[in-house]
Structures are given as C-alpha cells and as structure tokens.
C-alpha cells in the first residue's frame, strides 16, 4: 500500500518541540526583569524614603520574630506537638513584613496556607498562633483550623486558606465590601505563584479591575509550586505581565528585600486607598525550607547547591548588614533583639503546651451560626 498524503505530511512535519525548547519562558537567570528586581537600581535614600530609624528597626524586629517563630514551629513539629500539614515561611519573610508594614490599622489581609507569619504581622498574638498550631483551645480558631487556617476578626486577618487560589475571590469580596460601604480601607491578598494558573485568580483580577476595587494582589513567587518549577508551569515567566490582560497596574518587587517590598506595596496601597483600583505585585522570593514539614528541603526538584546559593540572599542577614552600615542597628542591639524574639517564641510554645485541648462539646459548635431553626441540622445520630 502506498503512503497516504497524511502520512507524508506527518513525515515532513518538523520535530515537535517541548515547551521548554521555546525561548519565551525565561528562567530567572535569563530574565532581565528578575535581575532588575533582585538588584533595584535605587539609591539608599530612595530605598528608605519616608522611613524613620524606628521603622527600619521595626522591619528587622518583625522579620526576626517571623524567623524565630517559624524555627520554633519546626522544632515543635519535629517533636510531634504539631500535626497535619505545616508550611513554614523561612526565606520569604521580607515579603509579608515589608508589605503588611505598608498598610494601616483597619486594613485587611488574607493569604493561603503558609500563613503563620501573615497572622503575626497582622497583629495576632504569637501565643494564639502557636496554640492553634498545637490544636488547643487557646488558638486563634480554638484549635479547629490548625496551621493552614489562622483567622483573626479583631486584627483584620481573614485567613488562612487551603485551596490554592481559593482566597482570591474571597479577597475580592472584602474589597467589594470596602467599596460598598464607602470605606477608606485596603484589602491585601497573598497567593503563591502557582496559584496564578487557577481560574479563580483570573476571575478575581478581572472583577477587581472592572469595578476598580481597593485590592492589592501580592504573588509570592518562590519559584516552586510544591516541587514544580514555575518555568515548567507557566507559558509566561513574568507574572506581573498577567495584569495587563485586565488593564491593571503591576510591579515586580524584590521579595528578598524588605525595603523594596515596603516601597512597592506602599505605592499600590496608597493608590487603592485613594480610589485608584487594584494592583498586582509579583514578589520574587525563595523558600529556604521544604514545601511543608513533610517535604524535603531539596531533592528531585532543586539541588542542595541551589538552596545554599539562594541562602546567600537571606533577607534577614542582608538587611541586618544594611542597618549596621547605616548605623541604625548595631550588632549588639541586633543580638538583644534576637534574644527578645526567641523568648517570645519560646513563651508561645510554652503557652501552647499548657493550653487545654478543646472540650468534646466543641465538635458541634461553630458549624452553624444560627441554630435557632426548627428541624434537624446534624444527621450522624450522635447527638
């Protein structure tokens, strides 16, 4: 039988290239924007504009507390005191610390499941965060949420959400509420870079821009969605460009530099507060730990060498050196600060350990807010 036209055409077809053979999705090394973000060409005066020495020291304190608290969390997890999934923020501290410091009291924030530090930074007591990790009655959610579901109505911290990208429409709704009530507030939502591929993210960006809602979307690009490198997951490396599809302003921030995070976020927060609508910020950062406590720090998806090299960019050490050079915080003062936050973390562990387990009756509480209804709400035959 002779060759058919189709077979001939197929034979002449050039070899199909895999997605990474195409030049467009640049790796961090090839991406000029990454370089620019990592090394902003700004003078020191520009980088610290509007910030007092107290502010600069506070950023250090906040990052140090975040680091020590998460280290204490890791230790407690290793001891079996914390169960379930537990995602640490070590390496990414500059992102939330810089960005939340750019907000005002009364503003709101919400993130995914890597949420301990965002909760702390929004003003939730370390004791309550640790007790929640321990699943105790003294936790932020009375022990019902756990690591992934920190909440504080009082502090404007709206979670703690476990479904990748699921928090973006929720944040949109909070921004809608702000506009509906005519308030001068801002909603800040954090997502990992991998969440950007979810429809929920795009639906939210569209409506936020369409209705000019006071929403600041911060994508924490730590380069890996669990173990999948971003360039293996997105046709476009530069996340900030995704905002252009929604006619929304965007920016890249150096997520290893607390000053850059503050500066870029402040601009977006001010714009949102003044009716200028939403902004998408891509914070380029790196996670020094595994995806969760059950995952390895390095392995099939990244090498030990890569992690070690990235650790040279430790946001806390680099910032400590800067403050020392500026004469804002000496080595001795830093050590005093470090002792203080270690003590706070240790006290949080002690508080959590001593906090009682939730009582048995708690099982059926907070399932419904309004149980003042006729008829049956629970069908398990247990109560």
């Amino acid at each position, binding site marked *: 039988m002779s060759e058919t036209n189709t077979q001939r055409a197929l034979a002449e077809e050039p070899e199909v290239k895999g997605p990474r053979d195409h030049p467009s999705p640049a790796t961090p090394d090839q991406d000029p924007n990454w370089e620019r973000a990592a090394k902003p060409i700004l003078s020191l005066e520009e980088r610290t504009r509007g910030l007092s020495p107290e502010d600069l020291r506070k950023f250090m304190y906040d990052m140090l507390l975040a680091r020590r608290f998460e280290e204490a969390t890791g230790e407690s997890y290793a001891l079996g005191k914390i169960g379930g999934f537990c995602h640490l923020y070590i390496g990414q501290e500059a992102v939330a610390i810089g960005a939340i410091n750019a907000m005002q009291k009364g503003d709101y924030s919400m993130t995914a499941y890597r949420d301990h530090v965002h909760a702390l930074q929004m003003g939730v007591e370390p004791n309550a965060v640790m007790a929640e990790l321990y699943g105790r009655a003294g936790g932020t959610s009375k022990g019902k949420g756990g690591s992934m579901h920190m909440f504080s109505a009082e502090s404007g911290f709206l979670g703690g959400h476990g479904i990748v990208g699921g928090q973006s429409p929720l944040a949109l709704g909070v921004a*809608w509420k702000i506009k509906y009530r005519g308030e001068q507030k801002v909603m800040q939502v954090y997502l990992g870079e991998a969440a950007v591929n979810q429809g929920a993210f795009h639906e939210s960006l569209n409506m936020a821009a369409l209705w000019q809602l006071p929403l600041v979307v911060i994508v924490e690009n730590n380069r890996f969605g669990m173990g999948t490198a971003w360039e293996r997951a997105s046709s476009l490396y530069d996340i900030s460009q995704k905002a252009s599809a929604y006619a929304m302003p965007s920016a890249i921030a150096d997520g290893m530099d607390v000053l850059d995070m503050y500066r870029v976020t402040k601009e977006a927060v001010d714009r949102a507060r003044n009716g200028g609508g939403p902004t998408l910020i891509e914070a380029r950062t790196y996670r020094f730990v595994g995806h969760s406590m059950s995952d390895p720090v390095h392995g099939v998806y990244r090498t030990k060498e890569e992690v070690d090299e990235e650790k040279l960019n430790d946001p806390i050490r680099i910032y400590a050196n800067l403050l020392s050079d500026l004469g804002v915080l000496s080595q001795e003062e830093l050590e005093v600060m470090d002792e203080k936050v270690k003590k706070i973390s240790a006290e949080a562990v002690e508080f959590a350990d001593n906090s009682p387990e939730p009582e048995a009756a708690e099982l059926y509480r907070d*399932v419904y*807010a*309004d149980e003042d*209804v*006729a008829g049956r709400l629970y069908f398990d035959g247990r109560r």
Partner: protein
Amino acid sequence: MAVITYREALNQALAEEMERDPDVFLMGEEVGVYNGAYKVSKGLLDQFGDMRVVDSPITELGFTGLAVGAAMTGLRPVIEFMTYNFSLLAVDQVFNAAAKMLSMSGGQFKIPVTFRGPTGAALQLSAQHSQALEAMYAHFPGIKVVAPGTPADAKGLLKAAIRDDDPVCVFEGEMLYNLKGEVPEDDDFIVPLGVADLKREGSDVSIITHGKMIHTCLQAAATLEKSGISADVLDLRSLRPLDVDSIMRTVAKTNRVVLVEEGWPYGGITATVAALIQEEAFDELDAPILRVTQADVPMPYAKQLEKNAKPNADLVISKVNQVLYR
C-alpha cells in the same frame, strides 16, 4: 391574601429584604439591566441602583467567592445562579469556603449569604441544563438548603434565608416561576427553615417530597383518591435543617412510605430520608420504603426519552400500590 406568581413572590421577597436591610445586595448574571434571565429581579435595578443589583460577568467561581468574602466582613449578599447547573463551576467557594469558614475560624466569621436559582429539568434542555442538585448541597454541614414548591413558600423561605446568618441555598423550580398562588402581604411573613408542610392529608400512605415534585405527588394523590386510597403528601420545604418530627409523624400515621425527588437516587434526598426512617421508625413500617426519582442517567434531549426519565404521577401511583401490596 393576594394571588401572585412564584416569580413575583421571589421578587417581593428580594425587594422587601433589600428595603429592610441596606447590607443586602443582589449579584449575578443578567440580574440588573436584563431584569433577570427568569425575570425574578425585574425592576430591582431601578429601585436600588447598581451597587445593590449588580450585573456580574459570567464568572461563577469569582462572584460566588466575592459573595463569601463580602459576607465574612458583614454584608448579606444574595447570589443568583442563572441555574444551579452553572453553580458547579463555583462549588469550591460554596463547599470549601462558605460551608467551613465559621468552623475553620473558630466561630469568628459568619457567612450570611443566600444562593438562589432554578433547579431541575424544564423542557428539552438536555443533560447539562436539567440537573436537580439539592442533594449535593445538603451533603455539606455548614450549608442550609430549602426548596420551595409554592409562591407562598418561595416568598417566605427566601426571606428566611436572607435573614439567616448561615449560607442558605434556595432551590427554585424552573417550571414553577409562572405558578400562581395565595401569598400573605405582610412584610414580615416568613416561612421558618426546618418546618415541613403537610400539603394534603390522608391516612393510607405517606408521600414525602419537596420542590416541584409536590405538584406531581398531589396529582398522584388526587388520582389515588378516586380508587379509595388517601395519601398524606408531606412537603419537606427545607432539606437542611430537616423536619424529622413531621416525617416521623406521617410515618407513624400511615406506616407506608413513598419518597419522591426530582434528582438522582444515588445519595439523594430520598436516600437520606429512607435511612432516617429505618433508623428511627423501623417498627412503624408495614412495607419497605420505595422511591421515585429521575432515571439514573444524564437527561436526554429527545422529547419522549426526557419524559420517560422524569419522575411522574404514574410512577408515584405505581409505588404507592406496591407499598399497599395492591
């Protein structure tokens, strides 16, 4: 009492609750300028303006999440799903967010949101537009589900849903919007959640159902009456909370039960009610509990196939005869 349509009853409920509480707003596809795909929101945009009657893009997951986030911070959104079929794009926000937020936050964040829209088959809309999904929603603790079958229940239950502090899903009958009935005119008329209604009183058999199917069951009961069989027709109205007392009362009276629903049998509302009856009233039964549901297939388009797939009065009559061993 005024005689109005099911559609007008829902419209009145929305208007009255929006008038009563400035935190209530309506959002969904075509609810504003177009006056609603089924005209339930007719005139509301003119009355309340575009911040309170909001035309959303076609973005179910997005606007459903928006409602939950708005509810977290104090608003009382009403979301219209053009039909519940389309809500399948949005259920992450209903099941993973709305249903669990209060619990995950240890009681800090109530979600007083109402989801509403038509459920079930209309006429020849085929597989993706004909589903009755209330059982899936009622599966999730944290969610409340109601399914009004008359204009009065539509108004009363929707008002109760909007005033409730939990997420409430109101399943309206796509074929019921033109149904007329008497509806109280009192602004504070509500039908409380969790209260079933005996739509017809009998003594030989209990037919338990909800939503559009009450009309099929009433029709069957009228036919059965002619052959000397009198049926209790219990309209559950509310599926979660569920009026278990009323169920047990009718079972104790007639000792024979036929359960009817528009959705599929697997894990259906009828499956749950049957389980409850055998757990709690086994000794009252004189016959096995039988069920009438949609055929366990995706809804076909062809007229006769569709007709055969739907539950109907003849099937109800046949099951009633079986439980009476006739």
